[in-house]
């Protein structure tokens, strides 16, 4: 059996990276006669002495003409035991983007250091990026040893410096090999010039590095990719690629996000051969004992070990485009496992200087090649794990919806924690001492959508359970708190702002504040949400999504009729816009039942 090992190489042309790869390909007899002949021809045309092995890896004409490397290239070579895929990433300015791309699938990173130059800023950057992307094995090749007289002292000095800062990184396995890629010393065969080196040459090391335990074989995660049905035999199975754990027939599983449970009856390899177990990265089809409503983007887990479910997520993001910056407030398509939804960047916590690892606070954007920690909010919940726990369920990409480009690479840290982050005049009573945990439920929707009926029902239900709840009704507050406000856009914003602040005070006092108001503008609702997040309070946005025709047919106060007749102006849904929430916590539609059922759904969400 031949094992597959994926490598990423890091280093610049000056470090001799292309020469090293050319040497590996050449010495493993991967380079064939016609390819070598082409390289020799070009080298001769350029007046170089001997074949320039770097030419083997420069794929595009522009690269050969300009002597640069544009993009990630993939190379392949094999030994009797292993097949290697090298993601070869160039070392110039675009380096961070390309290295993150190449490292995303790699198990081992090969980092080149020029023996004359020693450990440079870029060496630190390479090691940090490898560790950030979850690569557990580093091989540091100290190259051009021939130019430092094969000095053991020089090698030891570089090794010790590198180890010094790598200790701060999350990498368990670092090997150091002194080489000369140009002459082949310690690449494939031991170097006669460096008898003092007792380690294994690079290729031998790559053949032995132990990666079997790097995969997560504990947390069962199976993102459903496609439901395969075949009427002729009544076949129904769930196709996907195992992202974690070991699945076996007979295992109890739970389907996220629905929570439905069932049992695996059969696991089929591609083509239908039954198998006794499946583990990453196998593509299989899983059949269950029960007919459940499962679709692409759902995930099978074990009942006692589920993926996190959430819409507010903290992540490290590497920005991949020069066309536009990542900005707080912007929205993107997010692709995560087999699910696709939308995400809005809530804030940028800090930008990381990849050379010094210094965190720059007070930033609200990221540019090409920059890495920072962000919080985002998704339109529907993601089923995820932290990236360090599971690469497949902990990674995502952001796609710009206007250009369709992949613009961001994300590594999930975990579910966002809500905690007080602004200085607040502290009172003598801590929130935990208030006995009850407050929150705000914000119902938004058109006039006559049914908000008030649901809110009344929810308040009644919570109070009956002995919880403190208080309804802030949009009509009622206009009699007092907001008696001075009309219905112009600015007044509506102020109406929402005041109710948002009051709700936050109620929530802080330990009450479930139920705000029921049309609140037609997305930005004003967002401000209300931010007021809660700043204070570390839960804010649950419920969109009462009753179609306009239905609301207009109900028209209990005759307002729609008057608006249609032109007797009143600026009426939401008629001549003033309603901006539906993009990222609600819950959507209620008429089909979801009566106000009581809807109130129950909200109560379930807030744990009542």
């Amino acid at each position, binding site marked *: *059996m*031949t*094992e*597959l*090992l994926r490598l990423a190489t890091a280093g610049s042309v000056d470090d001799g990276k292309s020469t090293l790869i050319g040497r590996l390909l050449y010495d493993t007899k991967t380079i*064939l*006669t016609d*390819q070598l002949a*082409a390289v020799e021809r*070009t080298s001769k045309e350029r007046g170089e002495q001997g074949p320039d092995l770097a030419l083997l*890896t420069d*794929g*595009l004409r522009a690269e050969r003409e300009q002597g640069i490397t*544009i*993009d*990630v290239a*993939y*190379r392949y070579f*094999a030994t009797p035991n292993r*097949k290697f895929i090298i993601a070869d990433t160039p070392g110039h300015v675009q380096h961070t983007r390309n290295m*993150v*791309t190449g490292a995303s*699938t790699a198990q081992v990173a090969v980092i080149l250091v020029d023996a004359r130059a020693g450990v440079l800023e870029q060496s630190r950057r390479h090691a940090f990026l490898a560790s950030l992307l979850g690569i*557990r094995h580093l091989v540091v090749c100290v190259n051009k040893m021939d130019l430092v007289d094969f000095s053991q002292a020089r090698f030891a000095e570089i090794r010790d410096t590198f180890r010094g800062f790598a200790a701060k990184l999350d990498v*368990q396995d670092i090997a150091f090999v002194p080489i000369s890629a140009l002459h082949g010393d310690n690449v494939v065969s031991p170097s006669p010039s460096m008898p003092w080196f007792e380690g294994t040459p690079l290729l031998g090391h790559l053949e032995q590095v132990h*990666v*079997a*335990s*790097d*995969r*997560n*074989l*504990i947390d069962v995660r199976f993102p459903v990719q*496609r439901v*395969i049905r*075949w009427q002729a035999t009544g*076949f129904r199975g769930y196709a996907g*690629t195992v992202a974690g754990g070991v699945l076996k027939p007979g295992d109890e599983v739970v389907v996220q996000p629905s929570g439905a449970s069932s049992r695996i009856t059969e696991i*089929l390899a591609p*083509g*239908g051969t039954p198998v006794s177990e499946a583990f990453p*990265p*196998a*593509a299989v*089809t899983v059949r269950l004992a029960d007919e459940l409503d499962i679709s692409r983007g759902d995930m099978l887990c074990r009942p006692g070990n589920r993926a996190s479910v959430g819409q507010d997520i903290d992540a490290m993001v590497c920005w*991949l485009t020069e066309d536009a910056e990542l900005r707080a407030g912007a929205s993107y*398509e997010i*692709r*995560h496992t*087999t699910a696709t939804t939308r995400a809005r960047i809530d804030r940028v916590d800090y930008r990381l200087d990849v050379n010094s690892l210094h965190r720059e606070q007070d930033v609200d954007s990221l540019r090409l090649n920059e890495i920072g920690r962000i919080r985002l909010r998704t339109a529907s919940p993601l089923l995820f794990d932290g990236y*360090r*726990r599971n*690469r*497949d369920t902990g*990674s995502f*990409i952001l*796609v710009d919806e206007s250009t*369709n480009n*992949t613009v961001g*690479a994300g590594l999930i840290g975990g579910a966002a924690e809500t905690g007080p982050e602004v200085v607040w005049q502290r009172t003598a009573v801590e929130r935990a001492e208030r006995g009850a945990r407050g929150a705000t439920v914000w119902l938004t929707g058109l006039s006559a959508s049914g908000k008030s009926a649901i809110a009344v029902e929810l308040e009644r239900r919570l109070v009956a359970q002995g919880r403190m709840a208080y309804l802030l009704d949009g009509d009622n507050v206009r009699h007092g708190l907001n008696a001075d406000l009309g219905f112009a856009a600015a007044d509506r914003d102020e109406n929402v702002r005041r109710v948002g602040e009051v709700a936050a005070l109620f929530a802080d006092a330990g009450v479930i504040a139920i705000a029921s108001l049309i609140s037609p503008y997305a930005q004003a609702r967002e401000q209300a949400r931010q007021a809660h997040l700043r204070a570390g309070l839960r804010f649950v946005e419920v969109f009462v999504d009753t179609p306009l025709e239905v609301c207009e047919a109900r028209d209990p106060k005759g307002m729609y009729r008057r608006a249609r007749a032109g007797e009143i102006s600026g009426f939401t849904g008629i001549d003033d816009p309603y901006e539906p929430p993009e990222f609600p916590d819950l959507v209620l539609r008429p089909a979801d039942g009566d106000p009581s059922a809807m109130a129950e759904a909200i109560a379930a969400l807030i744990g009542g």
Partner: protein
Amino acid sequence: MTTETIEEGKIIDEDAPVVADNIEALESEAIHIFREVAGEFDRPVILFSGGKDSTVLLHLAIKAFWPAPVPFPLLHVDTGHNFPEVLEFRDRMVDRHGLRLVVAKVQDYIDDGRLSERPDGTRNPLQTVPLLDAINENRFDAVFGGGRRDEERARAKERIFSLRNAFGQWEPRRQRPELWNLYNGRHSAGEHVRVFPLSNWTEADVWRYIEREDIELPSIYFAHTREVFARDGMWLTAGPWGGPREGETVHRKQVRYRTVGDGSCTGAVESGADDVASVIAEVSASRLTERGATRADDRISESAMEDRKREGYF
């Protein structure tokens, strides 16, 4: 008994299954890609030439959706310079698996003057226009190809999901970063995505998979006796595309083909390899790449492949 410990975030399971077998890992990756495309695109199609790579592609597609049928048709760009064994094989595969076949014929374009025959008689470069027309007319939005990154150095930089603009062109400097196994197939109207599930396979992997899965190939991949003549260091065969020129003598030789393309420019190699095992032995001993050995069109210049890719070729 399984022992599980978690140490500094590293998960150690001493009874862990071994590292993925190369061929199984490559198969899983390709199957994953097929299923992604089926989930994300409306009108995919598999480019099928009857060559070994596209035959492996079809085999993987059948496995990916089993027991349901392959949810997309095949597209063959017919140069008119076909090996009869390959056409017969193509039709038999279509019948056997109940597939729909779309054929775009270069000959039609030559007949009505939209394309003209090249002085050297080769038609591989003429495939691009009929291919793009077929994609546009059928509104195909994802086109599977059997391209591999190890084939040629411009292909080493190709993505698995490769966006093509409205003219089918590849823009190497505008490629999307491709991370983890998350593929971005978003495209605008008129654009399409070329998808290469075999990107990470080498020629040796393809042959080992053919052996493991016992995949049937057109007979010309195995040693047979054929009348051939030498040109540009390759053994070419006579056909409707023409025969030996003055000074080129015909020999009877035992040969086989390493690639299947336009008959006018695809060369045979002398070989006694008459089954998959002996082909594998021969390929691993060979010191020439398959394209370098047998494809005149790839030897025209340093950038032959890159230029054709930019024009919309695979």
